[in-house]
């Protein structure tokens, strides 16, 4: 096993080096695409927490993403709050909103909860589009000042890249720590077998609300960063379709473990940019590609990869056992 770890370590260092020097080797266009990919990744990780780990399918993520974006936009544009405070307010505000919502909706189980979250994202989208006094209605909110801590301003795409990268690293580490912690095990117990989880002392209702709050926190932070990156937000970005894209990214990447969202997001955000020359056919190929990938790799790229690795190892072990007897 250690050989595999060493290779893994090498690959990681290479990637890290590449990542740090990325802004200088890549055009402004691809840099903005990377920034948007990382922001989308945070929402997909939030779906990984509530659905990948805790097993509760949720379409509310784009709604929470919107709540986070609007909190930051309103605080900075209308109340002239400092960017850092707005970011925290977005994260915690959305987490609180998700928790309250969870308290109400987690009396429902399985698909019923999923349908309720479809209602949530549609209602939120309706509010973003029409609640003029607060969200600026159809005009959205423009001129969101760039992110700044004290005098240090993050206006250029490169500086934003590092800012978002820091947030992504923190969220990835936090999720990895949760994944390995007792809280993470409680999530997965709920996902796999709720009755067994209860018998193992897991307060399912409370734990699901915590998972929903954490996913709200991630979406809130992602929404806030989205507001600062694009400095203009309108309701057209926070739709049911966006939520289902997060689900597609998570499932294609592999919902089992943390690398899944990374691969899924990177794949589905970068491919349409690389295949821009397809113009009108891009969405058709996107749709058919999703269907094909689900058939070929039901457990996603990472899940599928692991299975291939495992079956390869079992075959090798099987051969070894036969030899022993």
């Amino acid at each position, binding site marked *: 096993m250690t050989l595999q770890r060493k290779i893994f370590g090498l690959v990681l260092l290479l990637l890290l080096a590449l990542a740090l020097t990325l802004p200088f080797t890549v055009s*402004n266009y691809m840099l903005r695409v990377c920034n948007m990919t990382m922001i989308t990744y945070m929402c997909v990780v939030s779906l990984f927490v509530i659905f990948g780990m805790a097993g509760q399918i949720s379409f509310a993520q784009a709604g929470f993403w919107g709540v986070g974006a609007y909190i930051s936009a309103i605080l900075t544009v209308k109340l002239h709050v400092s960017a850092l405070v707005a970011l925290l307010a977005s994260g915690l505000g959305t987490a609180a909103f998700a928790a309250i919502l969870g308290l109400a909706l987690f009396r429902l189980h399985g698909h019923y909860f999923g349908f309720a979250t479809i209602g949530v994202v549609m209602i939120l989208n309706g509010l973003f589009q*029409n609640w003029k006094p607060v969200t600026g209605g159809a005009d959205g909110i423009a001129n969101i000042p760039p992110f700044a801590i004290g005098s240090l301003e993050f206006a250029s795409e490169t500086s934003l890249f590092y800012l978002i990268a820091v947030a992504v690293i923190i969220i990835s580490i936090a999720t990895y720590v949760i994944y390995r912690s007792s809280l993470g095990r409680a999530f997965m117990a709920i996902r796999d077998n709720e009755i067994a989880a209860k018998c193992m002392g897991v307060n399912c209702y409370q734990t699901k609300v915590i998972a929903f709050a954490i996913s709200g926190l991630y979406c809130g932070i992602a929404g806030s960063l989205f507001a600062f990156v694009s400095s203009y937000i309108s309701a057209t970005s926070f739709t049911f379709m966006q939520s289902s894209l997060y689900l597609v990214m998570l499932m294609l990447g592999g919902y089992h473990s943390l690398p899944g969202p990374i691969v899924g997001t*990177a794949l589905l955000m970068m491919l349409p940019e690389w295949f821009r020359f397809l113009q*009108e056919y891009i969405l058709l190929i996107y749709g058919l590609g999703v269907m094909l990938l689900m058939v070929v790799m039901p457990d996603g790229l990472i899940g599928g990869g692991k299975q291939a690795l495992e079956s390869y190892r079992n075959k090798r072990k099987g051969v070894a056992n036969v030899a022993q007897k």
Partner: protein
Amino acid sequence: MKKMSFRKILSVSAVAVLGCFLSAGTANAQELKIGVVTTLTGEKALTGVYSRNGIMLALEEINGKGGVNGKKISVMIEDDGGNDAGAVNAFNKVLSLGADVVIGPIYSTMDLSMSPSIKKAEIPTLVIGSSNDIAKQKNPWMFQTRTADAVSAAAIANYAAKKLGLKKVAILHDTDNFASGAAEVATKTLEDLKVPPILVEKYNTGDKDMTPQLAKIRASGADGILAWSQLVEAGLIMKQIQSMDIKVPVVGSNSYVTKIALDLAKDNAEGVYSVADYVYSNPAPWTAQFAANYKAKYKLESEFNSAMNYDAVYVIADAFKRAGTNDKKAMRDALAAVKEVVGVSTTYTFDANNVGGTSVAIVQVRKGVPQIIESVRGR
């Protein structure tokens, strides 16, 4: 618990900032490269296809006559997928391909989301959204070619109140950025004329059944309806107004007199007024020429999307002729100095706020064909 291997955690985060390879475009010094951001996929694909038709037709004509000062014009079209983030991506893409000047989409929310990138990239960009917010951005590099709502929406209100003598007007409009902004301006104009609207009804893009709104309008005894809609909803509203026996004059946005909406509504569109940037049946020689060329090339009737994009190319060509170089600063100043460039949609003169469209036409549908009644000059 085993010691948490720090390397494993770093691997998780490093992969998250996955890089990708560079896509550099080749820059050709003298030739003028126009970058076009429009919607070719998703729900709003219709407007994008028409915009592209208008641009390609203009390009063909200009390059056919040897280009400008002997230099050809080339176009790079990128799809924005119908959402704000997509528009910014497409804008950055054409920028990286070395565009000298950009033509933006007709949806104001996308223009507004591109505005910061335009200012940062300092590249002259013509946007075709009509919302007044665009001028408010005070972005020196962004030019609003379309006649802004301030003129067209006010013209609808004035025409309804003064010419048609309507006293109790009802307003019905989509909740998208275009219609909401226009409705606001019209409401204010009507209030200034002391005939405030007695009822304002809204619907969401994609709604099909307008019965609730129209039933309320019929019950309110309104003597006229002002409406701002996209193409499909325009056809729907004209049809449902007739099918609910609401016999009052209707003054709609430009969508109401496009061939598409008239094909959908058929004879229900009879007598509908509209304040239009462009109508395919405009008898003026250069407009009729465009309509004929367009129909010959695409087997489709032209409409305002293709007309305004067609004009945008000619406005850029005019500026390029005077600037003589594809340098961005020079092109910007040349664009700002565009004076009385006669287009098929309107005559273009960029004012201090970089708004170019100067006039709209009052039109009425008679025997299935929109007839121009009068032209309203904003300035």
